[in-house]
């Protein structure tokens, strides 16, 4: 419910003062909500430091994906969902790292910054130079009040380290990283407090809305007062971004009618209450992982957001896995290099730098642990049945991505990807499909085209994803991988 007077007041208030673009957008007519039978969701599940390549991919021929394909691989936890998986093979990152295409950051930094953006990392600071797919999709398909857009839900497990390029996978624009929420209590509390299902009457809700609108009208006047100052373009952008973020008021009720308060999550999250950024200690890691997965699923199922990401720690780091049967002495990154120790350089065997005994098995265990968390997510999403008879998982595309393939080589080729869910019947299922050759090739199947495929699958027409052609290296491609579509 909008107060029409406020719009006139808004225009009058500005008078001859220049209007920035976001303010103009605020005045544009709202797109009518499409009456769709089912809503589509997109999620990203992102792990780091590569995988044990010998046991990650399906076991057997391309084509129909069977349980035998997954048995004994890192993905065996996904067996219950075998009919809902699409595993493309042979993709490489584009732009490429390893010095092959322009860009800053080391190999790990580039792979963190580029995987969801397909924009090179900046030469200084290592942040991506363009927006990520989760941000773009949220802008396109994540409904907010009155046609505005809600931001994606960005979660992480682990703690930011301050080495900027390695801490983020999501970006709203060049150099504009979106810090994921690593404190599950904060993630949950923000979702439910902003999505309160009020038991009050429609009349009471209207009164709250009117009050918030009246407050916003005054706040808007306060923005206009600052906007009259001579400002640098950076300050102008700041003010416009801020106002765009608050210009719509709402009293939201759940779209799907599900009970979106989860006492179990609340109880498990309470120990993390009270700090803006959780300084997560390693023993907390598995509990935080489960919570973030559950919040991710809840948010998608309850339509608090239609776009969500979850990333596990960071490249060139990661925890030392000492839980769920793992008793490692070295952290994930160190193990990924197959070294006994982190101070063994290159392939040297000097000073006892042999490969750690069983390091490959340790990496395999880490991969399986991550895939069990993915299975937990898929299981939760698959448990919600929607009005069209499909499950929330069926109506979603959940993308598993990893920073690298072979961590020891810092390889950006033959990347592990999985898409779970058909996005409402648009993606092929139960399929293991070669888009490019296996192994170390960077010529045939760029990942920016996979991201572009997902954009189109989610209903956003797009010919190209990532840094414009000619600026990102020779191997990027436009268009979509038709082979993945129904």
């Amino acid at each position, binding site marked *: 419910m909008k107060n029409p007077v406020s719009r006139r007041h808004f225009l009058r208030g500005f008078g001859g003062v*220049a*209007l920035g*673009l976001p303010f103009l957008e605020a005045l544009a007519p709202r797109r009518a909500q499409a009456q769709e039978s089912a809503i589509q969701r997109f999620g990203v599940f992102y792990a780091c430091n590569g995988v044990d390549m010998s046991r990650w991919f399906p076991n057997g021929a391309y084509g129909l994906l069977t349980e035998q394909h997954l048995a004994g691989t890192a993905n065996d936890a996904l067996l219950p969902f075998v009919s809902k998986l699409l595993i493309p093979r042979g993709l490489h990152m584009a732009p490429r*790292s*390893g*010095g092959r295409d322009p860009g*800053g950051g*080391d*190999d790990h930094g580039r792979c963190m910054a580029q995987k969801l953006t397909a924009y090179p990392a900046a030469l200084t*600071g290592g942040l991506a130079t363009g927006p990520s797919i989760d941000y773009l999709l949220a802008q396109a398909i994540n409904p907010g009040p009155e046609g505005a857009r*809600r*931001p994606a839900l960005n979660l992480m497990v682990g*703690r*930011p380290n*301050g080495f*900027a390029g390695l*801490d*983020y996978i999501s970006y709203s624009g060049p150099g*504009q*990283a*979106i*810090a994921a*929420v690593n*404190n599950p209590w*904060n993630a949950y509390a*923000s979702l439910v407090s902003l999505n309160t299902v009020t038991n009050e009457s429609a009349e009471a809700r209207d009164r709250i809305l*009117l*009050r918030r609108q*009246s407050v916003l009208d*005054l706040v808007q006047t*306060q923005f206009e*007062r*600052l906007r009259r*100052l*001579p*400002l*640098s*373009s950076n*300050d*102008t952008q*700041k003010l416009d971004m*801020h106002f*765009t*973020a*608050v210009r719509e008021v709402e009293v939201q009720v759940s779209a799907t009618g599900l009970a979106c308060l989860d006492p179990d999550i609340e109880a498990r999250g309470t120990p993390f209450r*009270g700090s*803006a*950024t959780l300084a997560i200690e390693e023993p907390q890691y598995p509990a935080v992982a489960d919570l973030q997965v559950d919040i991710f699923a809840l948010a998608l199922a309850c339509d608090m957001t239609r776009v969500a990401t979850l990333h596990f720690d960071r490249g060139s780091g990661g925890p*030392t896995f000492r839980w769920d049967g793992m008793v490692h*002495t*070295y952290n994930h990154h160190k193990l990924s290099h197959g070294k006994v*120790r*982190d*101070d063994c*350089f*290159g392939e*040297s065997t*000097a*000073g006892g730098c042999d490969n750690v005994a069983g390091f490959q098995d340790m990496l395999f265990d880490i991969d399986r642990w991550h895939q069990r968390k993915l299975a937990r997510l898929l299981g939760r999403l698959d448990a919600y049945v929607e009005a069209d008879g499909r499950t929330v998982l069926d109506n979603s595309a959940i993308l598993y991505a990893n920073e690298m393939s072979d961590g020891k080589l*810092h390889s950006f080729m033959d990347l592990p990807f999985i898409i779970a869910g058909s996005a409402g019947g648009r993606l092929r299922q139960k399929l293991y499909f070669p888009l490019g050759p296996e192994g170390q090739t960077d010529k045939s199947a760029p990942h920016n085209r996979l991201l572009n495929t997902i954009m189109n699958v989610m209903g956003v027409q797009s010919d190209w994803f990532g840094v414009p052609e000619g600026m990102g290296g020779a191997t990027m491609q436009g268009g979509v991988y038709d082979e993945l579509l129904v």
Partner: protein
Amino acid sequence: MGMVLVGVLACGSDEDPPGGSGPEASTGLPEVAYRAPAQTTSDTRLARLTHAQYLSTVQDLFGIRDSLDLTFAPDALNGFAFNSSNDFRVDARLGPQYRAIAESVAERAVTEPAVFGRLVPCEVTVADCAEQFLGTFGERAFRRPLSPEELTSFRELFTLGASLVQSGDDFRDGVRLTVESMLQSPQFLYRTDQSLEQNAEGRIALSDWEVASRLSYFLFDSMPDPELFELARAGQLRTPEQVAAAARRMLNEPRVLDKLVSFHEQAWQFGRFSRISPDPTVFPNLPSEFVARVRQAAASFVEDVVASGGGLKELLTAPYAFADGGLAPLYGMTPPLGAAPGFSRIEFPGGERKGLLMQLGFLAANAYSVRTDPIHRGLFVIRDLLCREIPDPPPGASTTPLPPTDEPIETTREEITLLTGQSFCPTCHTQINPPGFAFEGFDAVGQARSTEGDVPVDTAAEMVLDDRWARFSGAGELVELLARSEEAHRCYASRWIEFTFGRPLSLEDVPTWDAMASESLPVADIVEALVTSPQFLSLSASANGQPAASPEGTP
């Protein structure tokens, strides 16, 4: 001499920095690239409160002491700038969170009598009580008196309270709406500098109120206290002398110490402590919670130096440390029997250890699980203490194999020298490695050692410092050289400028920079130099920018 003379660095500037500590081309010394001041000054008029500042501001404003259950979306850091708060923005997540917390605080303002009493200075039945509330609360919330236009706007909203909230208590409804709206106003959420008039130097002079806020957020990380407000109201924050006097009074408050320690934690990357992961089989003698202990010990040392009137020189060379019963044995000391648990000061007779770089925390944070990490120890000296420009390693650097060699490699130093002597590595590593080798007398957790395996450690090296070759043997000699080096003091001063103004050092800062770097100043004097500088008391003309382009066809 094992050092290769290098040419111009890959990504450095070959210009001398203004202020004149750059190398002379004719001396034949290796060229050194400094982080050069930016050509332009990126001052902002709108510095968004950090989440920590938001919390302490609301606590001070309302007299609330709890944590408010803030669940704000975290801020992203913009690359390697260590104080990027000038760039903090309100995104689509944070905007609605600000609204939610404003509504919850506003509810507390009218339901908790102590909070209400703090906000409303009069009996609500008094005729002009609403006017008094708007004036006094508005001045504290916006950290300056409201303009007549603002008063009119908020008065209107106050009056609407009765119909919009409908609690039955019209006055409280007005207070509640006022608080809700002020806490969502950019004038509250940002430290705004709205002054317009240029002074004789072409800079935009700040008002007393704006200077009060600057002082307060710089030193308290919160809104101005009553004394600062009083000075602003009386127009007593105009001259450098007045501001210096105000700062001296503030420096006596314990909370300022937290901020001064925090500068060092950020500038010197105490965050790296979280990477400490010694191999427990090699170092079974480490106490539990080793990381937390060394971090606490390092912060205690910085705090003690700052509180006792020290500066960079003492931070680098003071011959003592803090340790508890778990850490003292690693220094070869026995904790005194019956000593109270917790940290106490331990002295190093004969100066066997001096300053922060020879304490456990720094040494362990720049080491691997088993072996030392001379590269990162040296990089810290080069990048963080001397502000030299060193690019990140090129792709593949960390997986570069050792070249074949017939000689057996016996020490870390030999291996590093061999590894970084290849290809174009020496471009940077001839600078990085020598100061790192000085610390080879300390193992991966910071214990003193004279041998690595059976081989005596070699801690002698040389580097260019202040345009001259500086030779040292051991970390003790290196830190003494650094403490006397103009380069180090210049670097330290530039980090303070960046921290204080939340932007990169610029050419406009050079006179202030020169004045701060001339000698080893106590931190308190550095603070005074900063708050009395033109950069603190006025804005660069660049803050005015260009007005946004007028859109065509505005409806």
